[in-house]
């Protein structure tokens, strides 16, 4: 079971909340202070991407974030609702051509940032939607109160 589970409406203003919660749980789990900035950035990128996917596919379900504390590592899973056979929604077709192509570029850049930052990362898409799984080592015991 996840240590902390977060679900938020797929809106850009909630991504910051996800970053703050993830960083707080990571700190408690014993992730090195120097790495917390990376955790914050990576989870922000994953959540921004999920929000973008929900918006472009007109998905109303929330974005899911699982923060999992294990003995030796801290993992984050960010799940979106876009399954491998969702296809591309035509709802926003042609509405804002430039904005959409910008958004696509940002999505790719988001994944580039995640893979540049996190050594252990896995991006999958299944029946239930897409999932980005990332983990960082923790300095256990030593940091416990």
């Amino acid at each position, binding site marked *: 079971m996840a240590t902390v589970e977060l679900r938020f409406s797929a809106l*850009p*203003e909630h*991504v*910051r909340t996800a*970053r703050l919660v993830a960083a707080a749980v990571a700190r408690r789990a014993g992730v090195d202070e120097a790495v917390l*900035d990376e955790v*914050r*950035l990576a989870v*922000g*990128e994953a959540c*921004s991407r999920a*929000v*973008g996917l929900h918006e472009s596919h007109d998905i109303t379900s929330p974005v899911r974030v699982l923060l999992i504390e294990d003995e030796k590592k801290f993992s984050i899973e960010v799940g979106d609702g876009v399954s491998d056979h969702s296809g591309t929604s035509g709802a926003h077709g042609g509405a804002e051509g430039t904005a959409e192509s*910008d958004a696509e*570029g*940002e999505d790719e*850049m*988001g994944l*580039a*940032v995640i893979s*540049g*930052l996190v050594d252990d990362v896995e991006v999958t898409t299944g029946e239930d939607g897409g999932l980005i799984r990332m983990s960082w080592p923790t300095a256990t015991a030593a940091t416990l109160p």
Partner: protein
Amino acid sequence: MDLSLSTRTVGDRTVVEVGGEIDVYTAPKLREQLVELVNDGSYHLVVDMERVDFLDSTGLGVLVGGLKRVRAHEGSLRLVCNQERILKIFRITGLTKVFPIHTSVEEAVAATD
């Protein structure tokens, strides 16, 4: 923390001072500001990021968009940043090769290609 933006003119350069967090929520405000400046004829921009606490790929996308816009007018977009955590994002995305990054506004304003 929200995004703060202020602009001032130094010679033929326009300095945009950005503070706070540039993310998926706030980046559109920065995009609007850059687009407005270019539409008003400011083609040589210096974006001062010394007071930026957080930057993600959405923010990078906006800066790249700004660069494309000023270049269309043979302009320039220079960044001022000394914060390692922000510089790191430019490095891992290879954007240090795209943006001239300076250590002070004075240096950026004085710089020529």
